[in-house]
């Protein structure tokens, strides 16, 4: 009985979680549609926005499953940018966009790493210098 209750409660929790997610997606889709409507001056009906948000939610589920399958297919346990690129291979523009973003990110990462390295080196030299000075001072005295 307790297990059942727990199971049912968990299911309810899951369900409410999904509902909240769906609501969030719906809100975002609504905002985007409003933007497009104001741009093109074509109003969007509520049903359209609801349909788009439902579609987006389901597609997100599919994407997630596909990403997991791709990662497992490449014998990895983490989803990579390669998996994402594989997912977006259908539409050329999206693929290009993703690739560019990926390159930017890698560049940024390398820059960050370089900065960190530099910082570390400076710290090392700084710490070494006072240590030497301290040692020299000690020896001297």
């Amino acid at each position, binding site marked *: 009985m307790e297990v059942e209750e727990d199971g049912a409660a968990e299911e309810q929790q899951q369900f409410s979680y999904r509902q909240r997610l769906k609501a969030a997606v719906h809100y975002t889709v609504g905002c985007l549609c409003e933007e497009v409507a104001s741009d093109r001056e074509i109003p969007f009906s509520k049903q359209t926005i609801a349909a788009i948000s439902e579609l987006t939610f389901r597609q997100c589920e599919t994407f997630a499953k596909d990403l997991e*399958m791709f990662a497992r*297919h490449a014998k990895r346990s983490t989803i990579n940018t390669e*998996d994402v690129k*594989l997912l977006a291979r259908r539409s050329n523009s999206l693929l290009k966009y993703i690739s560019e973003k990926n390159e930017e990110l890698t560049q940024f990462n390398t820059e960050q790493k370089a900065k960190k390295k530099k910082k570390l080196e400076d710290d090392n030299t700084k710490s070494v210098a006072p240590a030497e000075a301290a040692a020299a001072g000690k020896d001297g005295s």
Partner: protein
Amino acid sequence: MADSYDGDSEPTTRTLLRRVLDTADTRTPRRRRSARVGYERALSESASNHTDYGSGLSRIHGNVEEQTPRTLLKNILLTAPESSIMRPESVVKPVPTPQVVQSSRRDSSRGSLELQLPELEPSTTLALGLLAPGRRKQRLRLSVFQQGVDQGLPLSQEPRGNASASSLTSSLNLTFATPLQPQSVQRPGLARRPPTHRAVDVGAFLQDLRDTSLALASPGDSLRTPVATLPTDTVLEDTQPFSQPLVGRSPSGYHSLPCLSHTEVEDAERAISHRTQSSGPRLQNHSEYMGHVAQRSVRTEKSKRHREMSEAVEAKEPEGSSGDEDISGRTGKGPSVGMRDLSSEPLEPLPTRLPPRARTPGPRPRQDPHKTGLSHYVKLFSFSAKMPMEKKALEMVEKCLDKYFQHLCDDLEVFAAHAGRKTVKPEDLELLMRRQGLVNDQVSLHVLVERYLPLEYRQLLIPCAFSGNSVFPAQ
């Protein structure tokens, strides 16, 4: 003997075959050697019975008194070197040996002919059907032969061609039954033709036969026919002097051999070179897809996969909506189409093995090699539609199938590259089927294989334990 000559000017292959069948009695097949002897015996016996036929030939072969038409036919079948046509003496040589055998065994029953019968029977229907187009060629060749040799052997040519045709068709039938048997399973004893002994004319006739059979058979079978033609190819040679006259008459339209390479590669799945251990389903598809897919990875696994897929797809085709353009059998997405792509791949390596035929006949029917495999699926589509369809609609269906299979093949390629491989493996196929929704947590790939593929494919794909702790296909 000379009196009871039939009204027919020349015994046709059909009548000869009928006579053979009438005289043959049922018996279990024996070894080839005994079969041959028995055949000769039966031939001689039946020849003696049907005097009209014998008389006709005995008139022709005045110099060789003992030679019966049957023995002559048999000799030609067995040896028949090119030169023998021009030099009748060489033909005479093998005759005495069977003669001796015949005379010694004349007493025994005529069951020997039966040895041929089990092989002839399944092929008779096919051979008779195929004889119609081939008969004309036979007659033409006969006239040529008569020109070449004064005492022509036209009658022997026909039956020889018929026998070889039947043997070819029987061998074809054999290959149809088990197209992808591993070599160890095949029994060489069942091979009917000695590979070295092959006459030019027979080769030409076989080529014609093959072309017509290929033309008659659905493109789906073309996957198997190349396998069937492989052993004959080594035998068939361009023999002078009759190759030129035959070239013009051969059914040039059906040079389906090169077409085979392109057919059935519809499915992106990759060509199936031959069956090896591959767990993935294979699809028989357009060769073109298979072609460029095969360029990247020609592996048996892939081909197996494709074949499986094609089978699975074909099996599911009736289920899927006929109106679905995206039916590509590849991953069982649905009805069938995707399979086609895969099947084309396996064909791709096979045609490359076939030697290019030097003589290209004249005009051949314009067959787009890329679409040959698709036409099979389009026909299936029009059949499932249960209502008349416009040609334009069928063309559109073909185009969509084309794109679909191309898409599937590209996907397979990308999946293989994603896993850091250059070869498409069953895992890639399974991933594709997962994306299509055919394979999920409830239904695995093996379940689909069991459900839709025939046993021969299943035993190649699903590992099974055999005696001696051996698992085939090896994991």
